């Protein structure tokens, strides 16, 4: 069953077609990658799906429900979340607090219960902490839990951001260039982590420049070029697609 369907989505910025009638589907429980040279419209597409932009035309359906033009928090409520290419961690919080913030939707205590420290709020807070710590263990950052998040290395911050998304238990996770800025060892760890995540039932859509990561992880690959989808298929098919090779893989540097 397809969890996400993108139908003829178009995004225009002052006459420039950043995304031009792009359509594709993402099946539940798979990993799908969107690749393409810089300026192909990948991040714009992500911003549309996650609700940062409302598309000029077209539809985005999450489990058959139209979500284009939703606010990001509304889509998050339906089980969709994302990470950011340039990292959007909460810089004045500890690593643990960052991840705990990811439990917002899975918890319910409001102003009243929190202000008066009602028993259910305290119980929830304990549970949030446990879940956050277990996610930090999964990404291997548990020993840095109490450190300010800005004290982590870039690669560790990426993992912290992924942990923050994991703790939400999303149905669909959008990752914007998760491998960029990682060293080879961290990339291997990332691939393992994302596989594990997929095996627990999370559908993953990623934008990625790192071809090894893409080919190793993806069930399907979508190729964008100048805002248009020029190819879609399994990693093996994409590597042999003449159009892709001509327009992208052969023509330009892959990175």
């Amino acid at each position, binding site marked *: 069953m397809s969890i996400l369907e993108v139908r003829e989505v178009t995004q225009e910025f002052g006459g420039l077609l950043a995304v031009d009638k792009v359509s594709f589907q993402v099946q539940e429980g798979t990993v799908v990658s969107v690749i393409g040279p810089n300026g192909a419209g990948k991040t714009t597409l992500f911003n549309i799906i996650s609700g940062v932009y409302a598309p000029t035309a077209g539809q985005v359906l999450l489990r058959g429900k139209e979500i284009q033009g939703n606010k990001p928090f509304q889509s998050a409520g339906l089980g969709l979340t994302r990470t950011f290419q340039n990292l*959007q961690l909460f810089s004045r919080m500890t690593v643990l607090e960052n991840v705990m913030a990811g439990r917002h939707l899975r918890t319910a205590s409001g102003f009243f219960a929190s202000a008066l420290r009602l028993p259910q709020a305290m119980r929830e807070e304990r549970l949030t902490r446990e879940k956050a710590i277990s996610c930090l263990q999964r990404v291997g950052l548990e020993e840095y839990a109490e450190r300010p998040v800005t004290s982590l290395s870039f690669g560790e911050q990426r993992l912290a951001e992924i942990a923050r998304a994991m703790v939400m238990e999303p149905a669909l996770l959008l990752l914007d260039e998760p491998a960029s800025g990682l060293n080879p060892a961290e990339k291997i760890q990332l691939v393992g982590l994302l596989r594990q995540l997929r095996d627990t039932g999370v559908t993953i859509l990623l934008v990625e420049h790192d071809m090894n990561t893409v080919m190793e992880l993806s069930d399907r690959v979508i190729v964008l070029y100048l805002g248009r989808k020029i190819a879609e298929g399994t990693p093996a098919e994409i590597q042999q697609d003449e159009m892709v090779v001509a327009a992208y893989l052969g023509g330009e540097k892959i990175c």
Partner: protein
Amino acid sequence: MQKKWLLVLAVVLILLYPYLLQSTYFRTIGIFIGIRAIVVIGLCLLMGYAGQASLGQAAFFALGAYTSGILTTGYGFSPWLAMPAGISLASLVALVVGWPALKLRGHFLALATLSFGLIVYFLLKQWSFLTGGPSGLTGIPALYVADLRLRTAEYYYLVWMAVAFVAWLSHNIVHSRIGRSLRAIHDSEIAAECLGVDTFRLKLQLFVLSAAYAALAGSLYAHFIRFFSPAAFGFKVSIEFAIMAALGGMASIYGGVLGVATVTLLIEVLRAVVPLVLPAAHAVAAIETTTFGLILVVVFIFLPDGLAGGIQELRNRFNARRTNIVRQAKEAKN
């Protein structure tokens, strides 16, 4: 540990204050610091945790004071009932003002509250049938607990109990799911949204809470001072609240209290000293305004996180030095 001792010290100091300085003048200043602290704690939450400024907090302060004053003098309400009525009214008004203002990005809340403050101020002056017009309300009853009339010393403790309660509530909020999400909004609104935080709703709730605090403070003010005119709730008062919050350190509850105490005492010192040097009638007001401007400039340049931030930095430096000394001592031994 260190923090706990500082808290204990502060509580002891606040408890002993009326007896350390046994004069009505100093007790009154203590009461004013407490009343303003209640407003400023709410403002600190709003500015420091939601990143939204209000330049009309005096209007909510006025709603509390006038509701208490009008209901008790005109309609025979018990002060203890008028107080929650004022808080409810201010909360409701905050909801109506904040709803459209917070839908917009940027500092629209600051602009909206600024104009709202001016509107309330003029209404207080114009609606004489309700508010007593420019001469204000008189004859507001004192507070009684059972048969005990709260005089200055008792009132001091009542106010500071309220401060403690408000600080406790606020501290709990900051260290909860809600507080985390609020801090998240402040650091990265887009990331917070992608985690499912309804940023508009949280900001609005916090704005309403800050208005409720201000109204509570207004009621406490009304029953202490027992007569007032609109002048006590003008634009300048709103600005003073904002300056106190900025000076104290916006993302800090105790910093807010510190900011209030500093500014209040400074005003008192100016009022005592300036006439000795400059006998002109308007000198005090002029010097006050200048001083506020100076405070803001100094805070923005040297203390972006206010007094609370400055103290934290001093402590960090002290601790770092101590660790260095210990390390050097160890190395010397080896």
